[in-house]
């Protein structure tokens, strides 16, 4: 069996086919943020504790800082850039603004990705499911109440599109 110092990968990133060569020591976070320059995905702790780097991989929330970049091969990946943009915010993003769920904003992309993974599996989540879905995302500003309210409101407005 062949071993690779750099491994060629091909994956779908926010709907676009992406090819590059990565080392086993590189993380998905490093590749997305530094090599592909998608700066929405944040590095907080770098060890899977804070959730700031959360992305959606094949429909599931994952800490990008803990994922070896070669494991992106063949996957369907979504980052916050795939959710909406300044002119056309996703209902979850709009709800976070409306309910003051954003203060410094560092945790926001990760929270959005956890919420996105949740509504992909459960389009109409309960309060408890919303709380559980973001239990791996730390926010040091808001105290979470506004975030939970926003996600609950946002999921009502996604119209079952996910």
């Amino acid at each position, binding site marked *: *069996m*062949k*071993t*690779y*110092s750099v*491994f060629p990968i091909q994956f779908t990133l926010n709907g676009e086919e992406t090819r590059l060569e990565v*080392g*086993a*020591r590189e*993380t998905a976070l490093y590749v997305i943020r530094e090599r592909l320059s998608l700066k929405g995905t944040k590095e907080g702790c*770098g*060890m*899977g*504790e804070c*959730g700031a780097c*959360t992305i959606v991989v094949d429909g*599931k*929330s*994952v*800490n990008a*800082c*803990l*994922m*070896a970049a*070669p*494991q992106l091969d063949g996957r369907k990946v979504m980052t916050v850039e795939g959710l909406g943009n300044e002119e056309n915010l996703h209902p979850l993003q709009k709800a976070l603004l409306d309910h003051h769920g954003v203060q410094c904003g560092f945790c926001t992309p990760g929270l959005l990705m*956890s919420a996105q*993974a949740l509504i992909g599996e459960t389009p109409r989540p309960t309060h408890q499911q919303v709380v*559980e*879905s973001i*239990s*791996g995302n730390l926010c040091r500003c808001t105290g979470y109440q506004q975030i939970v309210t926003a996600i609950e409101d946002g999921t009502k407005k996604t119209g079952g599109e996910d």
Partner: protein
Amino acid sequence: MTHPAYAKPETLDEALLFLKNYGAHMCPLAGGTDVMVNLRSGKLKTPYLLDVSRLPDLQGIAVSEEGLSVGAGTTINEIYASPLVAKHAPSLIKSCAFFGSPQIRNVATMGGNVGNASPSADTAPPLLVHGTKAILAGERGKRTVAVEDLFVGPYQSGIRSHELLLRFILKPAGAGFSDFQKIGRRKSLAISRMSMAVLADREKDGSFASIRLALGSGTPTPMRMGRVESFLVGKRPDPQTLEAGARLMAAEMIRVTGIRPSTVYKEKAIQGLFLRIMGPLAEN
């Protein structure tokens, strides 16, 4: 910082051949939740990462005449969502419910949790009370060992360098009482300060026909509390018996671990945790 080379076997034979040649110089990679952290910190230095995350032989949950079989590569979230595990090993389900965070549970595997051999591995106490056997594949064929034998010391695994952990076989729980509880500093993402699992069957008069108890994080390796089990068998869970059982749990932990700075806390915590987990059975 080391830059390991990457290898991704498509078949078990490919993986075993790699292990035969490079077993002493590699680290298996599945969910990465321990490996990537240890690579980053410099604690793990390895020339090769062997990515076993997509090996079909390590996947799947099934019931056979052997028992409940759970693949080593099964994620914590897959175990949590499995109706078969819910039916046959409810305490394992509970340990998965409070494991890490949703993001960790989506990728972390039970093989990794056992293979890392942390004293606080959350799946260990449930696996111990289910009399779990681990099946390992190596160059000379398969080997079956009791799962406690894979916990040799803190972060020291009994898996040999040329071996790969394939799956776990749990003895299914009967209709008896079963639970897992842990104490952490907070609910999510907390390393267990202490964890406990129980599996018990009772006679018609309420006395214990059999009971298995396992402790995590209280001893250098997760372990069955055999002396407490022997003490409880044949007795009913009245307050005096449970209080005595709790004191014996603490005494056993101290006998194995010795007195440490944390003992002043853990001696009380283990008794509280025991009384809490046995609470639903307590007679007035």
